[in-house]
C-alpha cells in the first residue's frame, strides 16, 4: 500500500512536468505534418494508374487504420504494465488511449466505406478484414463502457486490462486477415515481404500523414491524461473534505 501511494504522488507529478512541455510540441508537429501531408496528398502526388484520383482517400484511410491498431496495441501494453506492475500512470494511459483509438478506427471504417463504393462497387462487405476492424471498433467501445460501469477505479482498471489483453488477439487477425482468407480487401502494400508496392511519389504524402496522426495521438493522449489525473486529484480532495480555495491551488 505504501508503494502505491508513493507512485500516485511521485510519478504523476513528474509526468505533469514532462507532459506540459511535450504537449505543445506534439500538437505543432501534428498540425505542420498534417498541413504539408494534405498538400502533397491532394495537390502534389500522382493519380493512380487504376484508381485515378480516388487513390487520395488512401492518405487519410491507411494512417487511420494503422493508428487504430497501434492505439489498441499501446492500450494492451499499458494494460499489461498496469495489471502486473500496478503502475497507476499505465492504467490512465490505457484508459485515455481507448477513445482516441476508437476515433481512428471509426475514421478508417468511414473512409474505407467511401473508398469501397467507387472502387469495389460496395459500401461494405463482410470480408475478413472489414469485419475484424469492425470488431476492433466494438472492442474499444466495450473497453470504454467497462471503465464507466465499474465505480471503483482500481477494480475497473483490472477488469478493463483483462478485456484489453483478450481483445489483443484481434490485432494479428486484422493484420493477416487478407493473407489467411480470400478477401475483397487487397493485401498489404507497405509492411510486406519484398518492400512497399506503392510508388515513392505516393509514399511521401502517406508517411507525412502517418507522422501527423502519430503526433496527434501523442498530443491528445497527453492532454486527456492530464485531465484525468487532475480529475482524480480533485475527487481525492473532495473525499478528504478539502474545499478551501487555498488547497485547490496547491499546484
Amino acid at each position, binding site marked *: 500500500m505504501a508503494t502505491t501511494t508513493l507512485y500516485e504522488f511521485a510519478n504523476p507529478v513528474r509526468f505533469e512536468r514532462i507532459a506540459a512541455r511535450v504537449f505543445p510540441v506534439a500538437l505543432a508537429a501534428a498540425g505542420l505534418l498534417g498541413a504539408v501531408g494534405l498538400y502533397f496528398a491532394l495537390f502534389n502526388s*500522382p493519380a493512380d494508374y487504376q484508381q485515378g484520383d480516388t487513390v487520395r482517400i488512401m492518405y487519410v484511410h491507411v494512417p487511420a487504420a494503422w493508428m487504430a491498431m497501434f492505439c489498441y496495441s499501446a492500450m494492451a501494453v499499458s494494460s499489461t504494465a498496469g495489471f502486473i506492475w500496478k503502475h497507476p500512470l499505465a492504467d490512465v494511459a490505457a484508459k485515455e488511449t481507448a477513445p482516441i483509438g476508437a476515433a481512428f478506427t471509426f475514421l478508417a471504417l468511414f473512409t474505407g466505406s467511401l473508398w469501397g463504393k467507387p472502387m469495389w462497387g460496395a459500401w461494405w462487405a463482410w470480408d475478413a478484414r472489414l469485419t475484424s476492424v469492425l470488431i476492433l471498433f466494438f472492442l474499444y467501445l466495450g473497453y470504454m463502457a467497462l471503465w464507466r460501469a465499474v465505480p471503483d477505479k482500481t477494480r475497473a482498471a483490472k477488469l478493463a486490462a483483462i478485456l484489453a489483453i483478450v481483445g489483443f488477439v484481434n490485432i494479428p487477425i486484422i493484420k493477416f486477415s487478407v493473407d489467411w482468407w480470400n478477401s475483397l480487401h487487397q493485401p498489404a*502494400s507497405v509492411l510486406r515481404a519484398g518492400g512497399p*508496392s506503392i510508388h515513392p511519389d505516393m509514399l511521401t504524402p502517406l508517411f507525412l500523414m502517418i507522422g501527423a496522426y502519430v503526433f496527434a495521438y501523442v498530443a491528445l493522449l497527453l492532454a486527456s491524461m492530464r485531465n484525468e489525473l487532475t480529475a482524480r486529484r480533485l475527487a481525492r480532495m473532495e473525499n478528504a473534505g478539502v474545499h478551501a480555495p487555498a488547497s485547490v491551488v496547491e499546484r
Partner: protein
Amino acid sequence: MSPKKQQRLILFGGIFLAAAAAVALTLFALRGSITYFYTPSELAALGETPSSPIRLGGLVADGSVAYAKAETGDVVSFTIEDGGSDVRVHFAGLLPDLFREGQGVVVQGRMTGARVMTADNVLAKHDENYMPKEVADALKEQGVWKEDETGS
C-alpha cells in the same frame, strides 16, 4: 520480481494464451465461412454444384466479355478464371468502374449449371500496387509488367 507480481504475470499471460487458443480454434473451424469468396478451382474441387448463392472470385478472362440485349434489360456475360478452372457469368446490372478484362472481380449469385452462374452482384477487386499512370505505361512498354508485381 516479487512472488505476487510473478503470480499476476502468469495469470495475465494465461488469460491471453487461453483467449488466443480459443479464437484460433474458432477461426480454424469457421475458415470455410470466413473466406469471402471461392475460386473457380475450389468450386470444381467441390465436385457438386451448390444450390445456395455463393461468391466466386477470379480474373475476367481476356476477350470473354460479351454484351447481349434481352427483354429484361442488357445482359453482360464474361468468364472468370483462376488458372485452374473457369466459370461463365451472366449479369444484368451496373458494373463497377474497375471492371475490365484481366481485372480481379468477385461475383455473387447462383450457379445455374456446373460452370455457369447468374450473378446479382459484381464487385471489383484491386491489387496492392499503387503507381502513377505513366509508370504503369512505361512498365508495360518495357515488357516487364506483371499483374502481381510492381516491377519498380
